[in-house]
């Protein structure tokens, strides 16, 4: 009841015309920057920080939260239509979403991602309002040992994404590890694979890798096949929005995606990318339409990850609002905005700034509604992009990818990396190596490494931390079951089926 009263208070703050206006501005701006690969919500909010000198705290946080949620919606649009992920959290969306767009179901892919984002965003925001204290307790139980075990589980789960040939899949995964290692090693401060270039000391941005491999690589491949007359893009087949069957396949994926995204988003080292990988792997495993994955595009593979990234965006707010813990770049910048108002975000924030916090939560509900209203009608317009003739469309994608990459840090080196990776992507496509595992390796590899070394530093070199901590042991056991379970199961099935033949004397 307490929470409901607080939420009512929040809505009374958020429903003032001025704050509604800020919410609308934020969501619109967020959608726009989500579409651009270079501009992320963290950078945008950082550039808008001076606004805190001019407007009330409630208004600026409502604006920032709108940008944050909006970017999650917008990022999927270019992933689906142009195979050019706008945000790192929407890289997975490109895998199935772009296949769907090519086979004439781009409208459905955009619709399932918008509605899925709405469903998961609303569920996640409900989670922030009602479950925050419980979730944060769970999240803090995760230390380096537990994170490492979680990464092991993630590696095993996402092996489903490796593709048909595990040798090729693993090759790609290891390329990802190497790219992920570039830069200063966090544990020792030593540079790795930087070739003496200071621009490489901070590592390579995952967006550049995704855009290079997916968008540039794909464009080069298409250009080389131009006269083979293959791979026609079908702009639209069937209805613009989702069919009944597509609704039926989407809703469970939305719920599963939200259930994965919210708790992982709330973990201090969780992030928004890992839940999208996990959701994709799970949808692929559970789907009755496995043949559509990687061919014409399976709608579950879009619905799940899109729900997961929005739920994780809500999850990030849990430690931020309850403990003052920033767990993503965007949250860190929002916290510095608190400071320019002289508000110190921390465990006391909920009691000292109830108006602000609940106003923010209420405005997240409103932002979700605005975003779905804003995005659904745009689908008809976006899908028309695919009617552009292939040469112009692909040239446009190249321009878009180049400008976006330059926008990340205005560094010409980034452009060189983009095109090198584009060439690598082309070769990988030509020789049938999957590109998605590169991204997975690049994100999961360094995380697993860092957490492993942290755990070993803390335990002073004692390996037992991984199995004496209950949570870590549970995760490792799950990973073990995931790895061996299917094989053992298949073996038992095999034995049982073969069984009767071996019964001696059986006539």
């Amino acid at each position: 009841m307490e929470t409901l009263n607080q939420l009512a208070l929040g809505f009374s703050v958020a429903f003032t015309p001025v704050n509604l206006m800020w919410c609308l501005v934020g969501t619109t701006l967020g959608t726009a920057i989500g579409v651009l690969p270079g501009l992320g919500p963290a950078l945008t909010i950082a550039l808008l920080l001076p606004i805190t000198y001019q407007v009330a705290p409630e208004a600026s946080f409502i604006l920032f939260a709108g940008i944050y949620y909006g970017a999650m919606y917008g990022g999927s649009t270019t992933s689906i239509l142009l195979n050019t992920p706008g945000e790192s959290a929407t890289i997975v969306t490109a895998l199935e979403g772009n296949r769907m767009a090519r086979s004439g179901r781009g409208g459905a892919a955009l619709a399932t991602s918008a509605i899925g984002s709405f469903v998961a965003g609303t569920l996640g925001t409900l989670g922030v309002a009602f479950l925050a204290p419980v979730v944060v307790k769970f999240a803090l139980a995760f230390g380096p040992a537990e994170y490492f075990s979680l990464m092991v589980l993630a590696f095993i789960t996402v092996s489903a994404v490796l593709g048909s040939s595990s040798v090729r899949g693993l090759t790609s995964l290891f390329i990802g590890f190497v790219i992920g290692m570039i830069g200063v090693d966090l544990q020792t401060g030593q540079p790795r694979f930087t070739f003496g270039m200071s621009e490489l000391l901070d590592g390579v941005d995952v967006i550049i890798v995704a855009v290079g491999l997916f968008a540039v690589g794909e464009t080069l491949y298409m250009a080389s096949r131009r006269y083979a007359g293959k791979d026609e893009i079908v702009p639209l087949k069937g209805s613009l929005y989702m069919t009944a069957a597509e609704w039926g396949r989407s809703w469970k994926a939305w719920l599963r995606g939200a259930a994965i995204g919210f708790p992982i988003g709330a973990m201090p080292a969780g992030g928004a990318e890992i839940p999208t990988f996990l959701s994709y792997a799970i949808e692929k495993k559970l789907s009755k339409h496995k043949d559509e994955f990687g061919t014409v595009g399976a709608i579950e593979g879009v619905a799940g990850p899109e729900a997961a990234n929005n739920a994780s965006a809500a999850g990030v707010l849990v430690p931020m609002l309850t403990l003052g813990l920033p767990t993503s770049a965007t949250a860190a910048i929002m916290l510095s905005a608190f400071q320019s108002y002289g508000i110190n975000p921390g465990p006391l924030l909920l009691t000292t700034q109830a108006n602000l916090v609940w106003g923010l939560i209420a405005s997240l509900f409103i932002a979700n509604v605005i975003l779905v209203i804003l995005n659904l009608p745009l689908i008809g317009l976006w899908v028309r992009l695919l009617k552009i003739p292939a040469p112009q469309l692909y040239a446009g994608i190249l321009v878009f990818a180049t400008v976006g990459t330059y926008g990340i840090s205005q560094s010409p080196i980034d452009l060189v990396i983009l095109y090198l990776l584009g060439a690598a992507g082309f070769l990988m496509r030509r020789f049938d190596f999957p590109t998605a595992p590169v991204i997975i390796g690049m994100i999961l590899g360094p995380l697993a490494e860092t957490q492993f070394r942290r755990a070993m530093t803390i335990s002073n070199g004692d390996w037992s931390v991984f199995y004496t901590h209950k949570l870590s042991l549970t995760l490792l056991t799950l990973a073990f079951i995931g790895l061996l379970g299917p094989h053992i199961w298949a073996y038992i099935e095999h034995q049982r089926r073969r069984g009767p033949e071996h019964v001696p004397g059986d006539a």
Partner: protein
Amino acid sequence: MLNRRRFLMSTAAAGAAGFAALHLSPAFAQDAPQVQIFVPAAPGGGWDQTARTMDQVLRSEKLISGSQITNVGGAGGTVGLPQFINQWKGKGNSMMVAGMVMVGAIIANKSANNLTEVTPIARLTGEFEALVVPAASPFQTAADFIAALKADPTKVPVAGGSAGGSDHILFGLIAKTAGVSATNLSYVPFAGGGEALSALLGNQVAAGISGFGEFSEQVKAGALRLLAISADKPQEGIDAPTLKEAGIDVELFNWRGVFAPPGVSDADKAALVTLVETMAKSDAWATECKNRNWTPILLTGDDYAKFVTEDTARIGAVLRDLGLA
């Protein structure tokens, strides 16, 4: 089509609002100078906030007519520094925000350029660091912590920011003063204060070292215990001794200041020193510092240049002890 038009118009309006907030200068200050501020870090961090707060205060005090802020981020400022030295040479109305982190990064990254090539104008602010432990920790005082560190440094994992950063440097200085070999220290670096904080709250590590502001709210709420601060003297409203009072002769401010490019005239240099000094003595600046937990530690001109040289030598020695340089 209406949708697209409305969409574009609202985006443009929002963009214009942002632009106005950033760049429009008040019309009544036309005779005051324009300044350019170079930030060798991405928007949002400490240097960027210093630049944007300077811009805000300088304009509200009518000391300048406007300013333009340029961000070139990466590698603790060592990506931006060569650009500032080469491309901004001789520009008398420009300043770069930098600080202790850059001194460390220049040494650790073996950067080709260093701060002796730019013109020191003023040290503005500092953030002192805090040594904290989880509420459940057996350490009640800094002396308990030091005793445990002396007994077996490998059993006292300490969380903080990135390897070679200010937190790591302070840990190295504390160990050195206590007579503990820096190579045996168990330092657990985290990418940001938030992650280090969660390791402390989850009782994953024995202690934490980071900027006081990172921990202050948790200390207030009783989740962390503050053992000591690295300031030069006791601070009002903070119920903890300085490291010196606790018997560890170490003082450290994660300082931030401004530099002019190489090759500026003495007149330009003097004008910038006066400008920054006037700003730093204003009430508006004092208020901003208070809100952001920055301690004003103004030092200008030649004194500042001397300080930068000394601090570079001190940090270099610690980083060598820690095996990072």
